């Protein structure tokens, strides 16, 4: 994919000492990704990161469902900053695109309308007795991963190439609307040609696929997914993207935003069950990764330790292409190898659970 302007959208990303904020959706659906992020940063790269038990959700999903008022979310955000100050950190990294959008937007709103910052300080003090200083640096966790992409490439055990043919894997990247559409300058590469995932993909040997609906929303649409009656909108938008990308025969999708990763995975299941359509080359699904999982695989982490078994669409075809060894029988085991049953196979699944995993049963 050609691009030319990403260098014009550079942002400062701190080199070390991060205050980490977890994501509602990522910890629910991709807890292995959050674990991998911390492990990669602290173990592989030797960085310092604080996982503070006292922090909370930014309440962004409530805010974008319009039940949490602006004044309230500003105060919640202020509390997060206050916790960060208290712990002696000044680089805020958040594991969620909605949150990243919220933090960026609130800092910009405080700047543009200083009376809102004053009101927030007042509210926070009244509610908690806390005060806060703004962070020196706000980044999304993928920004940090991007920042260290060359270090990761240097430690790579696997590359994003077909181990048999040596051809680069074809990757669809999905950025997540709130990463740079709210403030194009807050994202690496801007809003039209974001480079945050593409930079990782290229550094690790893959090839980025540009396709007509690349910039389109995954369809989360907050209330449009959260309320069952509205989900026709949500699935239709993912459907539109999948229809548009399938002819390019991508080897996998990688998503910046935890919600997008979940929806692009789960909606493939629902579309297949509803109308029998599948988008993968093998007649099943296209694997969807988070960028932490992608980085983890490159660094040689065990796929099940990354939590890839929590996806609906099987990732094994991709693992095979990359020449990654894994134990099929260990996929759906619980803690300490405990057998806990296995999911039913669905149309999108290419690895029928009833043939492979009966060994341990």
């Amino acid at each position, binding site marked *: 994919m050609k691009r030319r302007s990403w260098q014009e959208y550079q942002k400062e990303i701190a080199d070390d000492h991060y205050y980490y904020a977890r994501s509602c959706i990522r910890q629910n659906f991709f807890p292995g990704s959050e674990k991998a992020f911390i492990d990669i940063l602290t173990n592989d790269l030797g960085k310092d990161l604080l996982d503070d038990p006292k922090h909370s959700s930014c309440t962004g999903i409530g805010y974008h469902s319009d039940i949490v008022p602006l004044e309230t979310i500003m105060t919640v955000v202020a509390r997060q900053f206050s916790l960060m100050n208290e712990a002696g950190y000044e680089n805020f990294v958040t594991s969620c695109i909605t949150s990243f959008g919220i933090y960026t937007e609130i800092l910009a709103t405080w700047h543009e309308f200083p009376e809102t910052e004053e009101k927030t300080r007042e509210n926070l003090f009244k509610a908690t007795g806390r005060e806060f200083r703004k962070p020196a640096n706000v980044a999304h966790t993928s920004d940090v991963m991007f920042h260290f992409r060359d270090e990761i490439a240097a430690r790579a055990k696997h590359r994003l190439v077909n181990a048999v043919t040596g051809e680069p894997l074809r990757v669809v990247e999905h950025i997540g609307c709130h990463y740079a559409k709210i403030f194009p300058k807050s994202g690496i590469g801007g809003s039209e040609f974001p480079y945050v995932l593409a930079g990782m993909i290229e550094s690790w040997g893959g090839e980025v696929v540009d396709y007509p609906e690349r910039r389109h929303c995954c369809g989360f649409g907050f209330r449009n997914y959260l309320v*069952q*009656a509205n989900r*026709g909108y949500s699935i*239709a938008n993912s459907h539109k993207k999948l229809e548009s990308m399938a002819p390019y025969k991508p080897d996998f999708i990688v998503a910046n935003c935890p919600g997008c990763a979940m929806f692009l995975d789960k909606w493939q299941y629902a579309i297949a*069950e*509803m109308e*029998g359509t599948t988008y993968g080359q093998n007649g099943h699904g296209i694997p969807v990764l988070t960028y932490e999982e992608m980085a983890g695989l490159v660094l040689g982490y065990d796929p099940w330790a990354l939590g890839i078994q929590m996806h609906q669409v099987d990732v094994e075809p991709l693992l095979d292409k990359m020449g990654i060894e894994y134990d099929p029988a260990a996929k759906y085991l619980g803690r300490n190898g405990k057998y806990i049953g296995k999911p039913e196979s*669905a*149309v999108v699944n290419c690895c029928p659970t009833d043939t492979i995993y009966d060994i341990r049963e």
Partner: protein
Amino acid sequence: MAAINFGYTISKPRVIDLDRNNLRKSDEILREMPELQTCIGCGACTAICTAGNLTSFNFRRVHTLVRRGEYQGAYEEMNKCMLCGKCRLVCPRGINTRGVVMLIKRKLGDF
């Protein structure tokens, strides 16, 4: 297929998709009445429309949709027209708007 009751279905797109729409009928209409293509979208026809003041009929919208290959429902819509001809008097491009109504009804009865 497993009969899962999802409680919703995949919404259908509303987009005017010019890669899918068949413009053959629209071309025929424009060939018979090329002046329709000179519409500047001013909306005078719709503002003065007798039927449009009483119903949801919007002449400008319907003939524009027809020109984009969106034929469905156009015939029924055009049936709301009372053929009073006031629109023709106000059209700054001198389009025979009443004739457009008749032509679209003649061409698109099947849609």
